[in-house]
């Protein structure tokens, strides 16, 4: 079997597996977020937290709960890193520098997991497992909770209430993320991922050198890093490290975990609004974009254009022998189509066009399928923009799943879409204006790509890196921290406001003039709107970076 055939089978098998679990797993997610019974453990949690699980929240209260939880998390994580030297299992590392601790605290709370540091030489085991990995769970749960609140806005009528954040957070964490993580971590351990508290084993190599074999609670963190579309590696080398991603089948499993929840959430949307076919339309948009992107990334990387790949004979720099070109490209596309940002190969050494694809994926707003929760709410807002554009063409008030899309809704949706491009472009411009782009390893168009990639990754809460840029300086840590913070919470506030205004409406019965939003035509229109929005926003920047380099 040739490498290309094997690579195609690899992608197909992932697709088949995701299709197979879509319905059963999506239905399970639906039951978790819409059930009314509380298990004994959950009741215990509510008592300890001191909240009444039966109390529903209006959008403002829901938003303030999200923000309070995130603010406390950032402070806690910051303090944790600053005093790690006084705690157990610190491996003798110093406290994390203040601008670095700020950046990392924001990074993990916003589900970004941008990393300016090397895990193996900066973070002790306790910070990794009781600080960073906890946020891998709860930041993912926050994303899903916000998406569910938006869907409740579509599903409910004449009410101000969107559910209870604490109940959503607890259920999503304990019934979805934790059980899958336990099983996934055991599977990774069978593959060879390490799970211990060792500070490292010093060995003498065959030729008399020394080598320190690192340890750590890696498997438990690796699995939630993928499942929660977080992406922060235990080690600097992330999922290319053999202790995080030891075999060719763990690589498959990790990509599957990345895509599992984002591709299943549209089913929850369909079930909650009572029209399963609306969920299929949303998942179809995601699938069209994802298949196109994964295919193109593979084509560009396997073609291996560029001087160095031509000299080598393959685009193999920064890639592992066990994954080779195709499985690396598939991972790269999956990690940036979602908000994961884990890498099993280093995007900076990709061919110019192959390396542009992860950038384009993030610029799409990470909606195909996007981060856990964030992908669904991003795509639902794109659907609103699409019905609005379609409504303008035929001169009718747009509707979507029985809700009128009026001026307030469109204002919120438009603001949502302006935030990320503003952060990316202003941030990149500021880096050049202040000379901070000089920390990029490469010069010329590739240097621009590195800066652009960093701001795109941070503002979209992805966290992957075109790693050839030094970002451990105070300027970079502060700027990217701000982008991550604003890129996460401003959209969340707008989404919840939108949910509140949708929930207050009474349903509009579908009429002759209603645009059907479950047909292929609508799917095609959403895809078109998504691509056009990105092209209009980012094409000039891409033309100066990867396009200039690759063409």
């Amino acid at each position: 079997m040739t490498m290309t055939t094997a690579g195609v089978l690899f992608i197909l098998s992932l697709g088949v597996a995701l299709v197979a679990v879509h319905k059963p797993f999506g239905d399970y997610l639906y039951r978790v977020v819409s059930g009314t019974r509380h298990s004994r453990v959950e009741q215990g949690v509510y008592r300890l937290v001191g909240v009444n699980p039966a109390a529903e929240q209006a959008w403002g209260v829901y938003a303030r709960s999200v923000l309070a939880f995130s603010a406390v998390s950032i402070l806690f994580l910051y303090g944790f890193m600053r005093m790690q030297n006084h705690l157990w299992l610190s491996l003798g590392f110093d406290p994390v520098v203040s601008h670095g601790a700020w950046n990392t605290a924001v990074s993990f709370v916003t589900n970004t997991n941008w990393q300016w540091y090397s895990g193996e030489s900066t973070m002790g085991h306790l910070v990794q497992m009781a600080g960073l990995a906890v946020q891998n769970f709860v930041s993912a749960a926050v994303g899903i909770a916000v998406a569910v609140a938006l869907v409740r806005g579509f599903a409910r009528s004449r009410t101000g209430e969107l559910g209870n954040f604490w109940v959503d957070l607890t259920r999503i964490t304990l019934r979805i993320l934790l059980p899958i993580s336990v099983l996934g971590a055991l599977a990774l351990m069978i593959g060879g991922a390490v799970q211990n508290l060792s500070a490292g084993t010093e060995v003498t190599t065959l030729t008399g050198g020394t080598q320190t074999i690192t340890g750590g609670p890696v498997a438990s963190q690796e699995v939630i890093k993928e499942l929660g579309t977080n992406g922060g590696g235990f080690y600097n080398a992330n999922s290319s490290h053999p202790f995080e991603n030891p075999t060719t089948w763990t690589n498959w499993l990790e990509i599957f975990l990345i895509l599992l929840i984002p591709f299943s959430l549209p089913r929850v949307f369909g079930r909650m609004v009572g029209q399963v076919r609306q969920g299929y339309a949303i998942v179809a948009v995601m699938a069209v974009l994802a298949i196109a992107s994964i295919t193109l990334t593979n084509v560009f990387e396997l073609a291996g254009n560029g001087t160095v790949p031509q000299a080598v004979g393959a685009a193999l720099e920064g890639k592992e022998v066990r994954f080779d070109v195709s499985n690396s490209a598939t991972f790269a596309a999956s990690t940036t189509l979602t908000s994961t940002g884990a890498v099993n190969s280093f995007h900076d050494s990709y061919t110019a066009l192959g390396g542009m694809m992860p950038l384009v994926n993030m610029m799409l707003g990470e909606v195909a399928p996007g981060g856990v929760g964030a992908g669904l709410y991003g795509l639902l807002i794109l659907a609103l923009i699409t019905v609005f554009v379609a409504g303008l063409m035929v001169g009718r008030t747009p509707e979507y799943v029985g809700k009128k899309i009026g001026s307030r809704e469109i204002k919120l949706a438009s603001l949502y879409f302006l935030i990320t491009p503003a952060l990316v472009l202003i941030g990149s411009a500021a880096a050049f204006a202040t000379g901070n782009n000089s920390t990029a390893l490469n010069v010329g168009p590739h240097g621009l790509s590195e800066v652009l990639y960093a701001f795109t990754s941070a503002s979209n809460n992805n966290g992957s890196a075109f790693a050839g840029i030094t970002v451990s300086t105070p300027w970079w840590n502060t700027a990217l921290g701000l982008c991550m913070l604003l890129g996460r919470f401003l959209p969340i506030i707008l989404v919840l406001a939108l949910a509140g205004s949708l929930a207050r409406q009474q349903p509009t019965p579908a009429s002759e003039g209603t645009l059907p939003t479950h047909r292929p035509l609508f799917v095609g229109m959403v895809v078109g709107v998504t691509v056009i929005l990105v092209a209009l926003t980012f094409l000039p920047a891409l033309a100066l970076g990867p396009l200039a380099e690759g063409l």
Partner: protein
Amino acid sequence: MRLPNWFAQHLAALRALLVFTVLLGLAYPLALVAAGRIPGLADKADGSLLTVDGRTVGSSLIGQSFTDADGNPVPRYFQSRPSASGDGYDPTATAASNLGPESVVDTLAADPEESTPSLLTQVCARSKAVGELDGVDGRRPYCTVDGVGAVLAVFRADGLTGAVTRVVSVNQVAPATPFITSYEGVPVELARPGEDYLAAGGLVTPIRGNAPADPAVPADAVTASGSGLDPHISPAYAELQVNRVARERDADPMAVRRLVEEHTSGRSLGFMGEPGVDVLELNLALDREFPAG
């Protein structure tokens, strides 16, 4: 007493965070650490360590350098891929090179120690070295015979267009010989250390040369991995090294080839990933079966 609303919310947030920290940050990972003590899983949870005569020599998942104290390859061992982790295969400093596909111009300083080679030159130099070690043709496209990137800075009369006025081979310094004598009729000069020909307006022009499109030295032998700890080499790179290792150990090449096959892992389920040869395991097996004289 009724707490102000904003305060109550942050208190609930803090309590929730503490509850989840205990559940997800301690109970969950420590339970898995405990599960990792189960016989059969324990070896893997500890890092798949390999032991010889009671001495731990490494991990079957983590690559090693098989070089002497000066960094020269030890010929009786199969060699690993190049590595960008620390000084090579350092698990406390995992890294990739992060150099891009058009990293083709070296930064040359008067002191060769201070020069920074481009990715292209690194590839060319590795290819040449492997070719010499294993007795094959180490030439590659875009590489000079002396093992640097074959790249010209071409100066034209009107900047981007016009007649060629001056040509410099940017990665070659004296006493080298320019890899081509002339370009569009203009003689090619050598580069002088410390000069930036790109800033001076030279157009970067890589020259393909006449090296075979399918070089004898495989791709993985001239590129660094993402982790810098890649435990594998391709079967092609292993095959390239069989004769040398067999010669150094007075062994039958067919017997060495058999060991290579035993330590080659195929694709999972027949289609996931690519085959790889675990270099450390292979070298340990060689030491057992053909102890070097």
